[in-house]
């Protein structure tokens, strides 16, 4: 999810990709315990959705396919899908921009 072509973030803002990834994972661990399980399941579903629509788990899709899936979930009529993308997007933007 951290490929700049996939999330539309300028490459220079994501030069600290590993730090951003570690921040996102740490924030997931810190979130209230009753939210962790639903978010974990949603993250699994998101990854699995790539298999359904693109023949591979999301993490193995090409950047353009990943972008397409993110946009599909972002504009979904299901609020839970939009919130899911918004959550990860917020963490990536906030931490990515913090290292610039």
């Amino acid at each position, binding site marked *: 999810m951290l490929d700049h072509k996939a999330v539309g973030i*300028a490459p220079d803002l994501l030069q600290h990709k590993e730090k951003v990834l570690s921040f996102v994972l740490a924030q997931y661990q810190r979130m209230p315990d*009753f939210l962790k399980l639903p978010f974990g399941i949603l993250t699994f579903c998101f990854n699995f959705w790539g298999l359904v629509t693109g023949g591979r788990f999301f993490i193995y899709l090409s950047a353009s396919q990943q972008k397409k899936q993110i946009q599909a979930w972002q504009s979904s009529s299901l609020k839970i899908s939009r919130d899911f993308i918004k959550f990860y997007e917020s963490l990536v933007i906030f931490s990515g921009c913090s290292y610039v």
Partner: protein
Amino acid sequence: MSNSPLTCQVAVIGSGPGGAITACLLAEAGRDVLLIEEGRNLPLESCPPFSHTELEQKYRSGGVTVAFGSPKIQYVEGCCVGGGSEINSGLYHRTPPDLLQQWQRDFKVIGLLEQDLLPHFQACETALSVGYCPGELPLASLKLHQGAQSLGWESREIPRWFRYDKSPSGELNQGTRQSMTKTFIPRALAAGCQLQAQTSVKSLHPENGGKRWRIRAVSQGKAVDIMAETVFVCCGAIQTPALLHRSGIKHNIGKSLAMHPTVKVVAQFPEVVNPPHVGVPMHQVKEFAPKISFGCSISSFPYLSLALSDHQVALNHVHTHWSQMAIYYAMITGGQGKITILPGFRDPLVQYHLTPNDLKALATALQKLCYLLLTAGAEILYPSISGSPPLTCFDDLNQLPQSLPRDRSNLMTVHLFSSCPMGEDEQRCATNSFGQVYGLKNLYIADASLLCTAPGVNPQGSIMAIAHRNALHFLGKL
């Protein structure tokens, strides 16, 4: 104090403004005080203010906390020694006098009018060096003030708990926030108070016919029991009712949570208004207070990028222009929420309900704020409503909704209170007028939970003064 289990005369749970002041005054009066804090004991300077490191070090759940409802409201709580005082803006207000009268009338609070609180305000203001910024104010702050002045609206600089020291060349520095770790906690420790950080209290149990409390806690992975004759719960408006619920104490606890729901707007100006390291600007517009207030938020590049992520503004554009941008907010005093413990989970569920009238009030507040910012010379405004077009002229204000849409509004708050209101009306209140929990003589609350309703201003001044008053009352010094 002895070992296994720890014993003390007074246990103060939570080291934010309410807990730190209580622990300090009780220790200075010679009481054997143990101050228990769930978060880490870190100096104020352990991380840059409003940084992602601060989120990691000092915020509960890394700042990933939300009140469920339609719309959801994101909120934050401090979780470190010093609590919220370590992470907030440092803006100071006394409790509005008419609000104290309202609390007296509606909640039957006694001894809490303006003249009663005055010595406590003064004591806290002296301890925290509350005052106005001695230097030039940031332009982002002045823009809000100028816009308000042009419209004839009341606007003023808000004092802060900052201390300004002179360099050897005689110049004043940018100021140091006088948080609890800079003020009351060192005083408490000097008076003999013991601090136990990274200790999470699970529940309270009365023993010996209610004459003392067994505090069940976990300290760095190990179960710890602490015995205390008196307990002050000072964990804030969410965690205090959560702890009391876990302990089976529920009378009027956690059912009346209030907050200041806040909607934001990013304004881009033609000139630089937001130089690096400026902190939170100091002006607030009080023309429509207490129902509606306007102010400025932290506007660093990461926060601006986050605020603009809904508007498809390219991050490169934000990166290039962020010093011309600032985040402003409009806040109201509406809505009500509750705190619930979910079986099997540690963290409490927070729910908050906004009525259609609250959403109309937020929309009105947003419209007025946008009008002010355009008057102040803003070129583009980005309201925090998903899918809302940028506003560039007064005619564009007609595009703003008459009521904030429940599914597209991004609301947040940093002010939470009123979950255990104080007063003599036992049908409505959780504690008496001095924070003593009804039915339990040696259990007290001393934090934002006690405020009867939303104050409409930054609440830390009220929390500190009430904690100061209640601690002196406990000591028999009032």
